[in-house]
């Protein structure tokens, strides 16, 4: 079993420099919130978590991976390098990253307004944010079609376009950044901003140099969640995008087609595994980026 689950970074083991002596290499020193992670649950907790994660996540993933190689590695390669598969994958990743990036900006703005501004109906808006979570995604798709479909009441028809996919993703991933930034913003020490102001910083400078660095981890993890969700999104896209190969077809829909229409579970598994692998890489990339920023800060 992997004990690294409990102490996922060796950094927390580094003792703080002695109070009197000048501090040494700053790259190795634990940052505040890592140190706060002391007090673990011991081997029992680690064991339970490991078994749980294995049952819920790792085993199914292993099963699908094993399945994808049923016809051998050569066949696997052929399946996943098919032009339609590659196109779907690239489109999925690009549109998901775009959705995550837009969310990072707009979600932060929404969180900001919800925390810092006072207006009538604020709690209603606050509750509304979670709606995309509660709605079955297929309903989300239908809603979008009703507004931006063939018979659009506002005269905008985006069906079967890439814009439609992006729109659907924006809809279902809206809550992630908002909900990860909101609590951090609530907790943010307002006096830090006042101190910055009294030291001569303009509101813009205060935001960039004080607020943003403190929100950054929350924004990044919210964006990472949006991305992960977007990569796997199916229900809200399947109707409005028309699933045009080489255009609006995303990997999830492509996999679905392989499984259902072509009755080809091995190919479906193979494409799934690639999708999985690439998403994992992107998520790890975001974490690394987050941590690097953390250390530089």
């Amino acid at each position, binding site marked *: 079993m992997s004990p690294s689950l409990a102490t996922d970074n060796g950094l927390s083991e580094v003792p*703080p*420099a002695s*109070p009197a*002596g*000048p*501090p040494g290499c*700053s790259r190795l*020193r634990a*940052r*505040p919130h890592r*140190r706060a992670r002391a007090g673990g649950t011991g081997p029992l907790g680690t064991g339970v978590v490991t078994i749980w994660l294995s049952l819920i996540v790792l085993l199914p993933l292993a099963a699908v991976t094993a399945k994808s190689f049923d016809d051998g590695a050569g066949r696997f390669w052929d399946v996943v390098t098919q032009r339609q598969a590659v196109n779907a994958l690239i489109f999925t990743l690009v549109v998901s990253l775009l959705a995550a990036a837009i969310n990072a900006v707009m979600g932060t703005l929404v969180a900001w307004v919800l925390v810092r501004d006072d207006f009538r109906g604020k709690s209603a808006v606050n509750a509304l944010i979670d709606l995309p979570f509660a709605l079955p995604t297929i309903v989300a798709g239908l809603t979008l079609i009703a507004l931006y479909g063939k018979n659009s009441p506002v005269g905008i028809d985006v069906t079967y376009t890439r814009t439609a996919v992006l729109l659907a993703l924006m809809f279902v991933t809206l809550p992630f950044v908002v909900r990860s930034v909101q609590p951090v913003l609530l907790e943010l*020490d307002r*006096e*830090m901003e*006042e*101190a*910055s*102001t*009294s*030291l*001569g*910083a*303009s509101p813009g*400078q205060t935001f960039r*140099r*004080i607020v943003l*660095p*403190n929100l950054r981890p929350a924004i990044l993890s919210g964006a990472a969640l949006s991305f992960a969700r977007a990569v796997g999104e199916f229900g809200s896209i399947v109707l409005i995008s028309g699933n045009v190969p080489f255009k609006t077809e995303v990997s999830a829909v492509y996999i679905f087609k392989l499984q259902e229409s072509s009755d080809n579970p091995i190919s479906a598994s193979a494409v799934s595994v690639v999708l999985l692998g690439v998403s994992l890489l992107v998520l790890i990339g975001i974490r690394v980026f987050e941590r690097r920023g953390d250390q530089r*800060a």
Partner: protein
Amino acid sequence: MITVENVDKHYGDFHALKGIDLEIASGSLTALLGPSGSGKSTLLRVIAGLEVPTSGRVVLDGRDVTNLAPQQRGIGFVFQHYAAFKHMTVRDNVAFGLKIRKKPKAEIKEKTDELLRVVGLDGYQQRYPSQLSGGQRQRMALARALAIEPAVLLLDEPFGALDAQVRAELRTWLRRLHDEVHVTTVLVTHDQEEALDVADTIAVMDAGEIAQSGKPRDLYDAPSSDFVMSFLGPVSRLGEGLVRPHDLEVLLEARDGAREAQVVRVVHLGFEVRVELLLADGNGTSADGVGASEPVVAQITRAEAAALELSAGDIVWVREQLGTRGADGPKAAAA
């Protein structure tokens, strides 16, 4: 020189500052003293521009700054809870104001290093605020505020979150620092000892108003009201007036103006002795215990105590020592 002219501040229908007039001399260290909720922080924040007064003016060195944004006032502000920039090292914290002012790199480094030496944090440049003690954090915050060479330094209960010993050390240190850099300083505190210890001038606030301001000694010796008197140190009520424990005389026989009392407790505090007395007529209460038969507290020297040979249960006579405050007492001042 800071001039606050007829400043009012309303929060909704709450009147937090009521027509404040205050002059703070250049280079002085003034303490704003008052109970919780009396408006000390509000007044300080109005001076800093962090709060806009409902009416009235704030003038800094002859310049009306009432409508000037805080970042344009050149005022150093130190917060009770440090307001450290958590994501920056100590060095970057202190350098912040200089970086905003786009000073050359070398100058910034030299200046921050010097300031950190002044506040006793040399060698801590690379640390993050969470790796400092409370006292160190507050000294960092002070260095940060001083870095911009402010015309005025405002401190809102800077030592409030620290324990008594560190507090006492830091305020002595602050006084020395002030004597070196001579920046006009306003210190908010609700600790009268702190105010008496470090300030050249004290302004006592009560419910949004300045109750009295002046030199610490004048305030202590000639308080303009019972409120100011009781706020600047312990007092007991003896008949009509308030008296300080060290202004009480304990006698073994009845004399002019003395009241009969029973000794409740004798506490030896080292260099002095505190005697708690219960007046025979039940008239004596400490200023805060309204009506309750709180003991009257007298403070006498060890020699006096030895001569009197007091112990609990003894019957004595107590009166206000003649000539200690003369006609300067609150009764006289109020009349």
